[in-house]
């Protein structure tokens, strides 16, 4: 049998009908009736439980993982809408998928990472090749998570982690994670991929520096309080729209922070790692990012560059094609930052950009992904967190 996989999507507004339609299409394309594993990404306009119930019913209650996104990505659709769902079903006698979930991150990403690692450890096998992670994009802090997760997993070689942070279409209120029949927030779901499969991936952001080097002069954890001795918001507001105070979710997209890429991963990556600022505090003048930062860290204010994004996507295609070396991928996962979607590209531009990459990597492999609040993918065998980035992983 090998691996049979299929992707279906729906933008029907009725959650039950949408779930059923997407699952039915996926099953039909995979040519299976009972999958071993189901991956789901959906946007937050739906009644999430109704949606997942419908998918579960249509997929014979097979193990399910997934999360909410700002939009869905398949071969046919790159819909950044409040009502979109995509489903991938898989049946395989060469790859195994086993998952676990953790609820209540509650700003304690380190503890959550430990719990997740503990839950996944019994599922590890000698042939486990990758870990996929989908975490709440509003309460996640990657660095403490990674440290405790890898420690509790107890592997000598870190397991490559791929994934994205769940989104809620700029509402910044509540994202959702799906694990089997459960729908919850402030949690994370993860699954291990074991068996005879390999994974090739490409990562690219496409942002450029604006202005000169800045320094973080006061911070704690993932909170940046001061830049160059002034409140962080004061340092940034000159670059922001007039209505940045009320429209932070969109205004902050036009600006991101770039940190010098650490030496140990520099060889495989660009000059900067990018951080989005999902939160701010007007009274105290600070901004939050999704990973830890230390005082004295140099940073640059960055902006997206459409040309760089486009050429970066092409670079991902070439990178993957080179790694695949004529081998056909069994399926492809795509985690794209919300800041690289309709907020920067026109619909037609965005469609052409992703389609070109899909065409480049072959028109057959099932392709599923979502627009995320943060992307996860390894660089030079180091698991890294990204913003304003595309992570594309092909399993072959």
């Amino acid at each position, binding site marked *: 049998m090998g691996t049979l996989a299929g992707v279906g999507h729906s933008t029907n507004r009725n959650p039950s009908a949408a779930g059923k339609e997407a699952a039915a299409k996926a099953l039909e394309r995979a040519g299976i009736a009972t999958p071993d594993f189901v991956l789901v990404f959906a946007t937050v306009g739906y009644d999430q439980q109704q949606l997942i119930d419908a998918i579960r019913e249509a997929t014979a209650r097979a193990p399910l993982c997934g999360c909410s996104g700002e939009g869905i990505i398949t071969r046919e659709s790159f819909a950044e809408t*409040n009502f979109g769902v995509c489903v991938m079903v898989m049946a395989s006698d060469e790859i195994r998928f086993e998952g676990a979930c953790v609820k209540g991150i509650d700003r304690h990403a380190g503890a959550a990472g430990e719990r997740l690692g503990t839950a996944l450890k019994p599922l590890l096998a000698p042939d486990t090749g990758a870990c996929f992670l989908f975490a709440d994009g509003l309460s996640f802090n990657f660095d403490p998570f990674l440290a405790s997760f890898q420690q509790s997993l107890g592997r000598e070689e870190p397991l490559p982690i791929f994934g994205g942070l769940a989104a809620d279409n700029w509402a910044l209120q509540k994202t959702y994670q799906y694990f089997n029949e459960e729908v919850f927030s402030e949690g994370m779901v993860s699954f291990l991929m074991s068996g005879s499969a390999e994974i090739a991936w490409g990562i690219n952001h496409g942002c450029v520096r604006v*202005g*000169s080097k800045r320094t973080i002069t006061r911070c704690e954890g993932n909170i940046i309080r001061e830049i160059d001795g002034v409140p962080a918001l004061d340092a940034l507001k000159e670059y922001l729209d007039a209505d940045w105070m009320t429209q932070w979710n*969109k205004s902050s997209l*036009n600006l991101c922070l770039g940190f010098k890429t650490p030496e140990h991963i520099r060889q495989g990556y660009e000059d900067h790692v990018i951080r989005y600022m999902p939160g701010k505090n007007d009274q105290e003048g600070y901004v939050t990012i999704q990973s830890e930062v230390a005082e004295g860290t140099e940073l640059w204010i960055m*902006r997206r560059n459409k040309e760089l994004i486009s050429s970066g996507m092409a670079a991902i295609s070439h990178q993957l094609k080179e790694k695949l070396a004529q081998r056909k991928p069994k399926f492809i996962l795509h985690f794209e930052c919300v800041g690289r979607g309709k907020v920067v590209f026109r619909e037609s531009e965005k469609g052409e950009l992703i389609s070109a990459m899909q065409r480049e990597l072959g028109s057959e492999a099932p392709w599923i992904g979502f627009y995320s609040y943060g992307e996860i993918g390894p660089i030079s065998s180091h698991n890294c967190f990204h913003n304003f980035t595309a992570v594309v992983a092909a399993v072959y």
Partner: protein
Amino acid sequence: MENDRQNMRSAEVAGQPEELAALRRENDSLSGQVKELVRAEGTLYRYQEQLDVQLREYQELYQFNRKLSASQELPDIFAHAAQFIINNLGYERVLFFSFDAETDRYAVCALDGYYRAEDSAAVGALTIARTDPLLAPLYAGEACLIHLSGRRHQGLEGLASAMMVSEYLLYPLGSHDRPVALLAVGNSPDQAPFCRRVSDSEMSLLGIGNLAGLLSSTIENQILFASTKKALEQERLAEAKYRGIFENAVEGIFQTTPQGRFLSCNPATAEILGYGSPEEVISSLTDVTSQLYVIPEQRKALFKDLLQGRPVKGFEVRFYRKDGRERWVRLSIRPSFEPEGELLHLDVIMEDISDRKQVEKAIRKLNEELEQRVVDRTRALESANAELKQLSQELESAYTDLKQTHSRMLQQEKMASIGQLAAGVAHEINNPMGFIISNLNTLGKYAQKLTGFIGLQGEAIETLSRENGRSDVAKDIPTSWRIWII
């Protein structure tokens, strides 16, 4: 930027404060320009996104309009519009109320966005009285009613609650003074953040306003179309009815000019006259007087009445078919005149009566044959009657003979019966008689032998008597025996 800083450092080192100040000013200016550029880029992206949304909305509205144009029934129009409002305009819920003249209320006739059966059942039964004060602003010409989340308005809030939304817009469809339908779009409190918010801003109302306008004109067109369609349908039915009569009539129906050219005719005309099609008749027969009438003068004679405006009915005439054979036809002709009084054309109904004529002829012949046969038969009967009389007499005579014969035969029969009886009786007697006779013979022989014996005994007795003197021995023999012995 890095170059600028280097230049500034160089200037400081060189102790050129003016140059340094100039570089700082330039740096500030450039920095300000970069910041401006970044802000402008952000604004550009935002406008671009809005433009994309608007462009897509217009494209979708255009597509929807085309789809709407193809829909001719109100339920289809409402169903398409509901889909458009939900999927393209992005409102969570939509309801269409159509006016019911019988109840004088607007009742829900289409809905979408209610994905729980109990919700759709509840709102599906919703009605609004035409006279509800809530609707008065619409009748007065308001484009729509707007109920925003959290705004207090008793009437609007009540309807919001009934429609299970917290914010909504209500548009009249059709004319304002008497809308044929109402359109309500809105969002529930839970879903509102993910849907197009209801707002009273001009921009926000643009999409749904355009749609409501489009629907209004479509519905009015539809109503106009429906009435036109009905009228056309009636006309079509009437035309079809008469066309059907014309096309399918057994009788030939045609129009000719007074000069004798066919203007039109039905298939039956062609069939009666032996042509393949009405077109062939029209093209072939250019002078009916000479080409159709076996006796052309008959048509000329008809014109006397026709020119005086008198229709001709039941005129039987022989026409030539295409193959030259004759057909009897019965014509009813109505003349049509120009307003000026000139004879325009003749409307003719032609009935093929050739078969009838043949039948009539056959019947006549049959009648004649029958009459002859009656005469012949009568004659034969008279002759037979005479013979019958003769025969009757003979029969009477024969009958008498027969009766006598019968009587005789009866007698003979009786006699035969008696004979048979007698024969039977004789048979019954003959047997014992035979027996008796047979025994009598035997007895005779015995008697003869006895007689001989008796004679011998007599002789012996006589001899003895004579010899003994006793002659009375014979006296001792019984008398009865004597007989037999004798």
